[in-house]
Structure formats: structure tokens, C-alpha cells
């Protein structure tokens, strides 16, 4: 790091000592590299101009692909004629991130590290990049559904809609953490580069149609998260949580890889669609007498296959902090910097949940008995553990970690039910959960940065109502919505999930959910009591005015909590969304 800084310093001064690599060459290198990349991408995009386009998008098993349109040989070049145009949002994001990287090299100096000016310009640029990626995704939304790159990537309506959601959520999370970034050691350009690369990883992950692609994008996302979590390394707690996350995260990636290799060795392909067809022809129902038992006779290839899927599931469940793979969540949420925690608690969960729902509903429906059991037990365990453990928590971010474990438990049980209605309601639950958490984090950001009130522990919530009535009211509504009390939207989400659970005769699980929501209401009400009824140590008062985007985010998500008018909208969108699964 020091050498880096020296080069930095040297570059920024007018008369510099010669560093190891000549600066002239250095500059040429770091400017030419992205230009080359950009040129290459443009070449690929306009490939048809250069040579005749072949039939792109074919994969080896041709009978699978008869349903998919094949690129026609164009006489006229148009935008959608090449594979790369379908992933133009990701390409754009990647390119612009690298360009931003070089920009930051050349324009920042050691004086501008941890500086609000840096943060300002980089936030603006990152948001601009995310906005244009959003627009490009919107354009790709209107393209036809394709499988690209010989089966690595799938682009269809539901995938693009999920990408839009994740991009929007990432932009919102960035805006929420702006004030924090101004004041902390994260006010450097590396944070934004890592952030954008993590978003890139998540977006690429969503459109994966092959286990390798999924693994690679999870790795990109994972490595960026390792670094993002580790940025708080000044404190002991931050260093501890970063090491924990790194070790556990790499371990889970290793398990994922092992699972993928097991599946490959038993089926011969890592492509989702070919695995799907292979599973269909394997007649699991012959080996397993009823959908509920694992049968008495398990042939060796089937054991390998099931173990492979179990390992893959374990790694994915780790990512969404489901029990029993939830141990990392409270420590990491506590020790990581605020900006990272905001991002990590909302966006990857949406993406991984989407992929899991695709697994259960579309690709690996033959293994429903496996998914049902694992999701059901993991969900039930998450609910029990999340509810019980949060009663003895005295710190804010841990509290949110445990509550998100509980919410993921609810969603997992909704996934395990597996009907179209329950999938719709799970998506609704994820959206409501995302709104509630966005609101909560924005309130926390306002309290920490504008009221200068450290919100580390739950007793720091005291007296907020006296400081700012509207903020206190908002906080109370968020907590009630997370607890699932009527008339807030959290209740509706939970009610619909309960309906689908009871509809599949999972009565004991429904009773469990109902009882656990009662217990969770207990600890939410304790926090609410602190917010409203208690006197603060000193009443926090507004020290700096609340910035407009943050205020807008807070109030919009507040309205989303209160009024359930948007539920029909999300519902119809989710319905369209799910039906698209089956159209592709």
C-alpha cells in the first residue's frame, strides 16, 4: 500500500523522482488498457459488419434449442443481432467501472483520500453509470428471450426485471450511505469501484444459465464483498468480521465448486437446461416411491447427484443468511461499515432468492422433494433461531441481522411450497422486505449523520420521537411493518405467505410462523417503546440538514410501508414475472 501511495504522490507532483516504472509508460498503460477493452467490445458489438454472422446461440443439444430463436443472417445490421448486445448492460457497467478506475488513478491524490469532494464526484459518477445500465437493461427487456454464449447466459423478461430491481436497489443503497461515506475512511474511490463491480457480479449472476457462470459471478461478487466488508479494518471488530467473512465465504465457494463438480460428474453438463432434461429422463419417481421419502434404493450416481445439489444449496443458503448457515450474519453486520451493510442486507438476497426460485420452479423441478425438505427445515430453523436469538440482542445491526434471518426463513418456507401463488407471494415478501430495510437504513443514516447520534446499540434509539416526531413515527412504522402488524404492508406479505403455506397443508409450519411473529413482536415493541416512551440521554438535535435524495428515499419508502395500494401492482407484476419463467 505504501508503494502505491508513493507512486500516487509522485504522479501528482509536478517534479517527481523517477519511480520503478516510467510514468510515461505507466500512463500509456493505464489509458490504453480500457481503450483497448472498449474497442474490443465495440468490435464485438458490431461484429456483423465485419463478417457474416453465423448462427449464434446454438448449444450442442439441438433438440433443446428448437424452441429458441436463432439469429438470422442479416442483410441489414440491427441492434439485436449479436449475442453481446443482450449483455450490453453488464458490458457497459464493466467498462465504465474500469474507466472510472483509470479516471480515479489520474485525478485523485493522497490529499483527496477520505474527502467529501471525492465522495461527491464518485457518487455522482457511479449513480450515472448505474442509471445508464438501468436504461440499457430496460432496452434489453424488450428483446426476445434467448440463451446466449452456447448456454452460459439466459436473457428473458423475468431475469431483466430482476436486474432492474437489483440495479434500483443498489442505487438507492448508494444514496443512503452518502453521508456516511463523507465522514468515514470509506470516502475513497476504491469503495465505488468495488461497489460497482459487486453490482456487476450480482447482475451477471441473475442471468446465469450454467453452473460455471453462476460460480464465476458469485466469486466476483464475493471478492468485492470481502473487500467491502474489510474496509473497516481500523477497529478490532471490523478486522475480526472481515476475516470471518473471508474465511466463511471462501469456504462456501469451495463447497459450491465441489457441488458443481459432483453434478457435472454425474450428469455430464453444467448447463441448467441440459441438467433439467437429464433429470427428467432419469425417472426419479421410479426410484423414490412417494415424493416424501428418499426411498430404500439409491443408486450411486443418484447419491452423487443429490450430494452435489445439496452442496450447491448450502452455498446459496449461506449467501442469504439462512440457518444453519447464518452464523456469519450478525458479526459481519456488526463489524462491517454502514455503507456495506446497507448493500449486503438488501441486494444479494434478492438475487440469490431469484435464482433459488428458478431452481425450484423451472430447472430442477424433478428434485422437488429435495428442495422441499431443505427449504422447509432451513426456513423453520431460521425462524426459530432468528426469533429466539434476537431477544437478547442489544445492538442495532445485530438486531437487523437476526430479523433478516427470520424474514429469510419465511421466504424459504414460501419457496418450499412451490405453487405459483406462493412464488408470487415470496417475491412480494422480498419486495416489501427490501422497502422496509431501505427505510430503516435511511432513518439510521439520518440519525447517525445528521443528528450525530451514534446508533450502535438499541438503547440509542431512545428519545428519537422527542427529537423529530416524523422520524420517530417513521421508525415506529418500519418496526411495526417488519414485525408484521396490521395495517402495514409487512402484515400483508406475511398473511399471503401464510395462506399459501396453509393451502399446502403445512399447518404446523403455519402455526410456527404465527407464534414466532408473536414472539418477534415482543422485541420489536421493546425497541418501539424505547423510541417513543423513553427519554434520550440528551435529545439529539438536527446538526446538518438532511440531503434531498436521502429525504426522498425515506419518505417514499415510508409511504410504501403504510399503504398497501402497491400490493396489487407488485402482485400482477410478480404474476407476469413468474409466468415468464415458464414461457422461456
Amino acid at each position: 500500500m505504501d508503494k502505491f501511495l508513493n507512486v500516487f504522490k509522485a504522479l501528482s507532483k509536478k517534479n517527481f523522482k523517477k519511480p520503478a516504472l516510467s510514468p510515461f509508460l505507466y500512463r500509456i498503460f493505464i489509458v490504453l488498457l480500457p481503450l483497448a477493452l472498449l474497442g474490443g467490445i465495440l468490435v464485438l458489438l458490431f461484429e456483423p459488419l465485419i463478417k457474416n454472422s453465423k448462427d449464434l446461440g446454438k448449444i450442442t443439444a439441438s433438440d433443446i434449442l428448437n424452441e429458441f430463436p436463432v439469429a438470422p443472417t442479416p442483410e441489414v445490421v440491427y441492434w439485436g443481432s449479436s449475442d453481446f448486445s443482450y449483455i450490453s448492460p453488464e458490458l457497459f457497467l464493466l467498462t465504465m467501472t474500469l474507466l472510472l478506475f483509470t479516471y480515479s488513478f489520474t485525478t485523485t491524490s493522497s490529499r483527496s483520500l477520505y474527502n467529501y469532494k471525492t465522495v461527491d464526484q464518485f457518487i455522482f459518477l457511479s449513480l450515472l453509470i448505474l442509471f445508464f445500465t438501468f436504461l440499457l437493461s430496460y432496452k434489453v427487456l424488450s428483446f426476445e428471450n434467448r440463451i446466449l454464449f452456447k448456454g452460459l447466459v439466459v436473457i428473458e423478461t423475468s431475469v431483466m426485471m430482476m436486474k432492474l430491481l437489483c440495479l434500483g436497489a443498489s442505487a438507492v443503497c448508494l444514496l443512503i450511505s452518502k453521508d456516511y461515506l463523507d465522514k468515514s475512511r470509506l470516502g475513497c474511490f476504491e469503495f465505488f469501484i468495488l461497489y460497482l463491480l459487486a453490482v456487476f457480479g450480482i447482475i451477471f449472476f441473475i442471468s446465469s444459465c450454467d453452473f460455471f457462470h453462476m460460480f464465476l459471478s458469485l466469486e466476483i461478487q464475493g471478492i468485492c464483498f470481502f473487500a467491502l466488508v474489510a474496509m473497516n479494518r481500523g477497529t478490532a471488530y471490523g478486522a475480526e468480521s472481515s476475516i470471518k467473512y473471508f474465511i466463511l465465504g471462501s469456504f462456501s465457494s469451495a463447497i459450491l465448486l465441489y457441488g458443481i463438480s459432483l453434478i457435472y460428474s454425474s450428469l455430464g453438463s453444467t448447463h441448467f437446461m441440459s441438467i433439467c432434461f437429464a433429470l427428467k429422463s432419469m425417472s426419479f419417481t421410479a426410484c423414490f416411491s412417494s415424493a416424501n421419502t428418499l426411498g430404500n434404493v439409491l443408486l450411486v450416481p443418484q447419491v452423487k447427484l443429490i450430494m452435489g445439489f445439496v452442496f450447491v444449496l448450502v452455498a446459496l443458503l449461506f449467501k442469504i443468511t439462512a440457518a444453519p448457515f447464518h452464523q456469519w450474519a450478525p458479526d459481519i453486520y456488526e463489524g462491517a461499515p454502514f455503507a456495506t451493510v446497507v448493500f449486503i442486507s438488501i441486494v444479494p438476497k434478492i438475487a440469490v432468492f431469484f435464482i433459488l426460485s428458478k431452481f425450484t420452479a423451472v430447472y430442477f423441478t424433478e428434485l422437488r422433494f429435495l428442495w422441499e425438505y431443505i427449504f422447509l427445515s432451513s426456513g423453520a430453523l431460521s425462524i426459530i433461531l432468528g426469533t429466539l436469538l434476537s431477544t437478547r440482542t442489544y445492538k442495532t445491526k445485530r438486531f437487523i441481522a437476526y430479523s433478516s434471518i427470520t424474514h429469510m426463513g419465511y421466504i424459504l418456507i414460501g419457496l418450499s411450497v412451490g405453487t405459483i401463488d406462493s412464488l408470487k407471494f415470496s417475491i412480494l415478501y422480498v419486495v416489501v422486505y427490501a422497502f422496509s430495510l431501505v427505510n430503516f437504513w435511511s432513518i439510521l443514516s439520518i440519525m447517525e449523520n445528521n443528528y450525530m447520534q451514534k446508533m450502535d446499540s438499541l438503547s440509542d434509539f431512545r428519545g428519537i420521537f422527542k427529537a423529530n416526531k416524523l422520524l420517530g413515527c417513521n421508525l415506529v412504522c418500519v418496526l411495526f411493518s417488519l414485525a408484521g402488524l396490521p395495517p402495514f404492508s409487512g402484515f400483508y406479505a406475511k398473511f399471503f405467505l401464510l395462506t399459501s403455506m396453509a393451502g399446502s397443508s403445512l399447518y404446523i409450519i403455519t402455526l410456527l410462523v404465527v407464534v414466532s411473529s408473536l414472539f418477534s413482536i415482543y422485541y420489536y415493541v421493546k425497541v418501539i417503546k424505547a423510541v417513543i416512551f423513553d427519554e434520550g440521554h440528551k435529545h439529539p438535535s438536527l446538526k446538518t440538514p438532511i440531503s434531498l435524495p436521502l429525504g426522498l428515499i425515506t419518505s417514499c419508502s415510508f409511504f410504501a410501508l403504510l399503504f398497501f395500494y402497491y400490493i396489487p401492482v407488485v402482485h400482477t407484476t410478480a404474476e407476469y414475472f413468474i409466468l415468464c419463467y415458464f414461457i422461456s
Partner: protein
Amino acid sequence: MLNKIIILIIFTPFIGSALISFAKESDIRLIRSLALYTTLIAFFLSAILWVQYNPFVFKFQFINKISLMNHLNINFFVGIDGISLLFILLTTLLFPICILFSWSNVNFYFKEYVILLLLMESFLIITFCSLDLLMFYIFFESVLIPIFLIIGIWGPRRRRIRASYLLFFYTLFGSVLMLFSIIIIYLQIGSLDYQLLFFADFSDNKQKLLWLTFFLSFSAKIPMIPFHIWLPEAHVEAPTAGSVILAGILLKLGSYGFLRFSLPLFPFASVYFLPLVYTLCVTSIIYASLTAIRQSDLKKVIAYASVAHMNTLLLGLFSQNIQGIEGSILQMVSHGVVSSALFFLVGVVYDRYHTRILKYYGGLVQVMPLYTSLLFLFIFANCSLPGTCNFIGELCLFTGIVQDNIFTALMGALGIILSGVYSLWLYNKIAFGNLKVQYIPSFKDINLRELHVVAPLVLLVLVLGICPNILLSKLHVTTLLLKI
């Protein structure tokens, strides 16, 4: 167009609270008058509703349906029948006088107080006129949040937080299981439309299960022993307007739930569990009355009296004949009026002398004659003096109970005697005897504003005592066909 009046009644308090939220906090006069006008407009509209209601037809009138998700049958569905109409009128009557009473006693956060009261009014009106079981449940639960906040913020003592916790969790515990049974009903019938559910048939065992979960929820609200512990605490620790709403309307939510849902939807189970209901009610009556005699806090006496009265009317509700049901409905209204009036009067005295302990009061008739005459009327209405509506209510009730089970009627009548005991004892201690000047140096009689607060209730008590058919004439058709 007249159909939309119910939507107007529901949204008037919402709009009022939204307008008030824009007012400045220091502008108490504006907030007060805005709140009063809003609630008075709501009362006026419900009076129009009362007049326009057609009592000779058995169907839900003024139906309004806004469908949220048509294929899932989740709707915003409101409609009136005779019973709902009565309760809406009671609600819209009590809220203006609550606001009038809180004119100058609330020392801090007056704006938020009024906003919470108005929100609660909206929620209550929606609860009483909802024709969709899910909507009923949602607003039944969401009433808890304002009352929790009111007790917790504006209660006068430290113990208020404990009281609000107790209220919240006791009522929530039962309701959570009620959610489970609502889901089961939804899955069996496919819709939660009350007009549909009214004609639905559940099997005997299912009815028993569903009735039990509904019972848990409603009995915590009524409240029945052993779920009654929250009531004395909540009443004592609440500010006066909170107590009034709690006693006047929130307790009726439980019996309304029984009347509207448990009896018609699960008729077999209602008869099957009669011994349970009778036992718990009779125990509650006698236990609560006996406990009331021993209390040293003014509000606690009235709180335990509320428990006793609510359980008496529940006895009548389950007596499966028309006299019992109409008597219990009349008793609901009269209990709402009389308990509210008693809490108001206790609030008058508390505002002046800041104590509710019985020991410090005595001989008030010498210095506050007007007050004590009003207190006289309501205390004796509490023990069902003939000439007040309580008397006719209990008469009808007991006519109903006697037809079903004489032993229960005897025990309930024991409750009436005991109510006479604690009421007379209370009045005697407060009004007669020597003035306790060593505790309270100076006395002021009731002023004009507080008189206006209590006046409508006086009128109701006396008029309904002579001619209760004014109220009941709208209900006869509905109660006749309640599937008993």
C-alpha cells in the same frame, strides 16, 4: 350517491388528522377546533346514515366494495346492517366529547394526541362496518397501535408502560391464533366475504376449532377471566379520553366480534361451548364485582365494574333467543354510555385534584353539588336503576338467560346485587360524609365544558331508559335472522 356516505364517514377522521398534521404545534386553538369539527361532521354524517337506513330489509346496505385483488377475493368491503349502524353511531358520538374533554388537560404533544384519536376513530369505524373478515381482522388489530401509544405517552404514571405492554400482548396473543383460523376459512370457502360466509357450512370439528381461536381473541378484549388482567391496569394508566374510548368502544369490539362472527358462522360450536362461556362469564361477574368492592382507586372500581357488565351482556348474547341478544345489544350501548360518563366524571375530579385514591375524597356533595348529582345518575345507572337504559338491557338479558339456564341467571343476578354494593359504596364514599380538607384544600364544581361533555350521555341514559325502541327498532330484523 348516498351509498358513498359510509366512505365519507370513514375518511373524515383520516382527512381531519391529515389536516391537523400540517398545523403548527403551538397553535392549540386551531388543532382543537379542527379536531372537534371533524368529529362533529363524522357524527352528523352517521346521524344521516341512521336516518337513511332502511330497517325493514334484511340485507347489508350502503355497500361499497373496492377490490384490491379480484381473483384472490381480497377486497376493501364495507357495508352496514343494524348492529354496525348502532356501533358506528356510538363511536361517532363518543369521539367529539372525548376531544371536548381533552380541551385543556393534555400538556404536551397535543397535536399527536388528537391525530392518534382521529386515526383510532377511523379504524374503529372501518372495523364496525367491514364485511370482509380479513379487513375486520386488520383493523381490529390496528386499533391496538393507537391505544398502545396513547396509554404509553400520555398516561400520568410510570406504570403506564407496563399497562400498555399488557394491553398489547394480551389482545395480540389471541388475535394471532385468529389469523390462523381466518386462513383456514379462506382456504375452505375461497373468499372472506361476510355475506358468503354467513351461509357457509363448516363441519362440526372444524367449527369447534375455529370457534375456540375466535373465542381466545374476543375474550381477551371483553375481557373474560383469565384474560382480564390488562383491563384494570390499562384503564388506570390511560388518560381520560383513552379510558373512555377503551371502555366505551374497544371492549365492545369483543362482543361485536362474538355477535357478528362467532354466533352466525359457527352455530354448532357456539352451542357446544356454552358451558365454557357460561362458566367463565359467571366467574368473571362475581370475581370482578367482589374485587371492585375492595379497590382504593376510583378508576379501578369502574374498570372492574366494566368487566362485570361486559360479562353479563355476554351471557345474554349466548342465550340463543331474541330477548337475550337484543338485551345484550342494548346493554352494550348503555354500558358504553354509562362507563364513558363515569370515566369522564372521574377525569373531572382528577383534573382538579390530581389524585384518584378513594381515601382523599369525601363529602363532595357539599361543594360540588352539580357534579355529584350527575355522578348519582351514572352510578345508579351502573347498578341498573329502573328508569335508565341499563335496567331495560339487563331485564331483557335476564329474560333471555332464564329461558336457557336458570342457574346461570341466578348467578348473574348475584352480579347485579354485587354491582349495587360497589356502586353504592363508591358513591357513598365520594359524595357523602366529611370533606377531607386535610388533603384537598379547595374545590371547584363542574364547569360548562365538562357539563357539555356529559350532557349527551345523560340524555341518552334517560331517554333510552324510557323508550329503548328508538335504538332497537333498526335492529329487529337483523337480530331475528342471526341464525340462532
